[in-house]
């Protein structure tokens, strides 16, 4: 084996070490691996379990690839069986062992799919908070039906209180994602998707749309702020003092396409606005 190949192999090992180092250097900035909410934590744990199960196959593959390539290089003249092409036992192993791993992983998946179903409410002794989410061109409208307030591109909610998101879209399809709290769900016109998340600790978490929805899509980011219950209550009061009100007319104004919208607050709104937005798509006339 020539020198160039040895150098390449050496570089590959270096690269592998650097890549793993990268995970540690960026460690606390990697949202999915450092979730701040219960759902995100469980999803991360599942990611780790799946990774470990996969490594049972992947590590031997890497070891065998380089081991065999090294040992049986032509110059070395190791054992040579040019016609040996079948071994029941060996093939049974690599059909069988991965099947077993998949069965184990499948069981985890089944359990995970049910436990972490985004539509399933989170069990908690705290009363959950409902936030209705409407994806618009190109901003997020958040309606707090119980508090009778609404916001654009910003949400606040108390820590350790389950948040029930009801999600729709009055625009092309979007995906509602707060990586530090947990996985995403699509926002679709005429549909009500649900997502249940909870923040374990206070903090500002970045949220975004994960599905291309047109020109202003990159600017559809928002802050999800978890605070103490008192701070949340104060915040609701302060929003209620905001001069703008989210009437139907105001909504029609807001619905017009716009990009990189600043945060906005609405003191009270049309009751049932969310339903009205969803039901427009059910009528046989122009939405």
């Amino acid at each position, binding site marked *: 084996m020539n020198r160039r190949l040895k150098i390449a192999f050496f570089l590959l090992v270096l690269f592998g070490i650097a890549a793993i180092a990268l995970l540690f250097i960026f460690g606390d900035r990697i949202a999915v691996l450092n979730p701040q909410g219960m759902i995100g934590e469980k999803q991360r744990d599942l*990611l780790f379990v799946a990774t470990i199960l996969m490594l049972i196959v992947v590590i031997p593959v890497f070891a065998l690839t380089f081991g065999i390539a090294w040992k049986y290089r032509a110059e070395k003249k190791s054992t040579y069986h040019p*016609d040996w092409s079948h071994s029941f036992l060996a093939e049974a192993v690599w059909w069988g062992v*991965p099947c077993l791993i998949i069965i184990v992983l499948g069981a985890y998946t089944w359990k995970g799919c049910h436990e972490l179903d985004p539509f399933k409410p989170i069990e908690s002794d705290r009363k959950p908070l409902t936030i209705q989410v409407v994806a618009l061109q190109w901003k997020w409208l958040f309606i707090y039906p119980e508090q009778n307030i609404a916001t654009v591109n910003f949400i606040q909610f108390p820590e350790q209180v389950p948040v029930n998101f009801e999600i729709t879209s009055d625009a092309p399809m979007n995906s509602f994602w707060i990586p530090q709290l947990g996985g995403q769900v699509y926002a679709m016109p005429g549909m009500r998707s649900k997502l249940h998340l909870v923040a374990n600790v206070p903090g500002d978490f970045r949220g975004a749309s994960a599905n291309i929805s047109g020109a202003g899509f990159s600017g559809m980011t928002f802050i999800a702020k978890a605070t103490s219950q008192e701070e949340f209550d104060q915040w609701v009061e302060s929003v209620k003092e905001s001069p703008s009100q989210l009437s139907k007319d105001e909504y029609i104004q807001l619905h017009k396409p716009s990009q990189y919208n600043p945060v906005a607050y609405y003191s009270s709104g049309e009751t049932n606005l969310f339903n009205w937005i969803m039901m427009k798509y059910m009528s046989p006339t122009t939405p």
Partner: protein
Amino acid sequence: MFGRLTLNAFKHDLIEASVGVSILLALIAIVFLLTYYKRWRWLWYDWLTSVDHKKIAQMYLIVSAAMLFKGVVDAGMMRAQQLLSVGESFGYLSTPHYQQLFTAHGTTMIFFVAMGVISAMINYLVPLQIGARDVAFPFLNSLSFWLFASGNALLIASLMVGNFSGTGWVSYPPLSNLEYSPGVGVDYWIWSVQISGAGTLLTGINFLVTILKMRCPGMTLMRMPMFVWASLVTLVLVVFAFPILTATAGMLTLDRTIGTHFFTSGFGGNPMMYVNLIWAWGHPEVYILILPAFGIYSEIVPVFSQKKLFGYVSMVWAIVAIAFLAFLVWLHHFFTMGAGPNVNAFFGFMTMLISVPTGVKIFNWLFTMFRGRIVFTTPMLWFLCFVVVFTIGGMDGVLMSVAPVDFQVHNSLFLIAHFHSVIIGGVLFGFFCGFTYWFPKIYGFKLNEKWGEYAVFCWFFGFLFAFIPLYVLGLMGATRRLDHYDASTGWFPLFAIAAFGFLVICAGIGFQVLQLYISFKERAQNRDTTGDPWNGRTLEWSTASPPPLYNFAVIPEVHDRDGFWAMKHSKTHKEKPKYEDIHMPKNTGQGFNIGVLSFFFGFAVIWYIWWLALLSIIGIFACLFYRLFDRHTETYVSVEEVERIEAQRGKV
């Protein structure tokens, strides 16, 4: 008169205009060179009208190479935008232009590069490997290629006239509906995919019949070379999957042009149906791309390990299992659409199951190397790089099949890194591997090893630098298709590493061009006079390099797997072969004509120029009828001619 086509369609910003102008200049240069060297007749009679599968394969290669260049430029422009468009700065591309770039990049790379190189490989190798003189329907083959080329041309035309779609390469409605994308972009996407897709479907039927009906005597299904097996199964996938694409894109067209409501939001339309349908095609499509690449590796590893392929029967069943499962996993592309936990779990499990036969293939290749005598030529290096990159990609594919994990990485750069790992690492490396290996067969001389090695290393490390950071970025919450992000995200350094990786890949492409140039210059030293430069095992090596028009002077007969290997090692005395007149198809220009007319048809429908659409349809049918009633479609190569060609074999 010209429908939606007005002078506005030709107005572009500076960057877009410069792309258009450079394409025009390139076209003018080609026309000039052809005229200057008086090559028009040669071009028409030897190439454009050819029905020879070997020439059609080379035309696929040329188109795909040009499109690869375009796709790489797209990628570079996107990387540059993501480097420059942070925080206060908004980069150098307008948002619509950026969105067209990623749509065009995906469409180009999947439909025109990956499908193109796969079609090229299947075209060139299948008849040679099964010991046939041509394909079942030679005219259809030429037509397939020209439909493919015409789809390509439409995409290129969008750079100059109007604009391309900005909705992503699968064009989800409602974004791709007329309401949100009123321009011609989505129509360009539809028709370039639709026309080239029709070509692919015809290729599928053609080669399926070829493999089933035209194998040489003695070649039972279980004696076919593994590449032919991979192709056979791929073609079955093509035949089942591509009609779904045609129907789906067709319904989207109806929504956009005559106002139906298949996929609109409201009016009873259902965009989710589109998402299901497009992936019911889209997932098998992924295996349509990767299976032939698996076939290529299965040919290369035994030759350069100088050992029989390990576990042939296992390999066949693994391919068949992958193809079967390919139709049962489409939902994993949208776990986040809100299907219930049972549905998600089922599709997740099916997806994981695919990793089993895929893993089996990898282990079989590794055990082909085991107790072999491995020679590290460039094809073998591509294979080793493939194992590393593809295993990484496959592993995170399984991670994403766990639906709750997918909720956290769906549509993030993690996903982007995953499918580039399997498509670059699997399909593209596989093609480069096969191209280097079969190059002496196609052109009669070997490629330079040294520059080839540099190319492998640059591609491999470039890939790692360009895509490993994307895995991390995805986990940091970076979504795909962003033309701008906030500085506070801290993503910039990783995007910078990825951009560096892109430059290394470009160096790899540079080395490949250099390799072609140097090999061509030194072709006298690297000439393959034997037809069998690598000590090959399959039938294509039994004929001359490059093969004569009729492939085999005498149709071979095989008695074993690795037919040619057995022939070389059999003790029987070789008699001088007895030649006969060889029956071959005649060239025809109708494939080319229909391709050109399809281009006009597509263009006319995109711009609502209905009279032109009607004229082109009439033209297409006229060409078809002309061809149907043409009775002089076949010719004979006389015995004397065969003897003359065979006598020259091996002489320069």
